[in-house]
């Protein structure tokens, strides 16, 4: 989670939001959240699980 926050703090182009899945079940269902952390980029579900910073960078820019 912190990586998304750190990316947002490093660039005005980036926003980073944590969403508590249990409190927003409708949105979680729409995005197929069955495992956490689930990372969504520009509204598109991309992957589940924590990854190191270089891999996080590669995936969010892919």
């Amino acid at each position: 989670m912190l990586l998304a926050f750190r990316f947002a703090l490093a660039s005005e182009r980036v926003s980073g939001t944590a969403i508590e899945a249990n409190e927003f079940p409708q949105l979680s269902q729409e995005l197929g959240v069955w495992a956490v952390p689930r990372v969504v980029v520009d509204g598109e579900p991309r992957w589940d699980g924590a990854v190191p910073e270089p891999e996080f960078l590669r995936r969010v820019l892919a």
Partner: protein
Amino acid sequence: MPFLRAEEETKVREWFAELERPVELLVALGPEETPRAGSGDVDFGAEMVRVCEALAELGEGVTCRVEQEPAGFPRFPAVSIRPDGRDAGVRYDGLPWGYELGSLVGAIVEAGREEPTLRPDSLAALEQLDRDLALEVFVTPT
């Protein structure tokens, strides 16, 4: 009821004492979605205020402000973590409890740094961004 153990509170006070710039927590309250079964009778908005106000008491550089349905918040409750009171696009939607309280504390610590803590190659890549990028991470308290 305290929301941090004594040793945790001591650690958070130490981290907040080292903030290089003020951090504002803007708590946004409004209509809430019905949470998943098992969440009990928790008043998420009231708990969000309690947690953020309690965190603000742990460091002079941390402040807390509460607004009803401010612009730019799609879900409630939520908290925007703002370095120097500026919207930097860092937000937590829902109550950060349990394990996730650490994410909110970490966000405050990161927002309180003058310089980004990312690797140089990450910073270089972000400098080249020619579009906005919205990162959302779904989490749970455990």
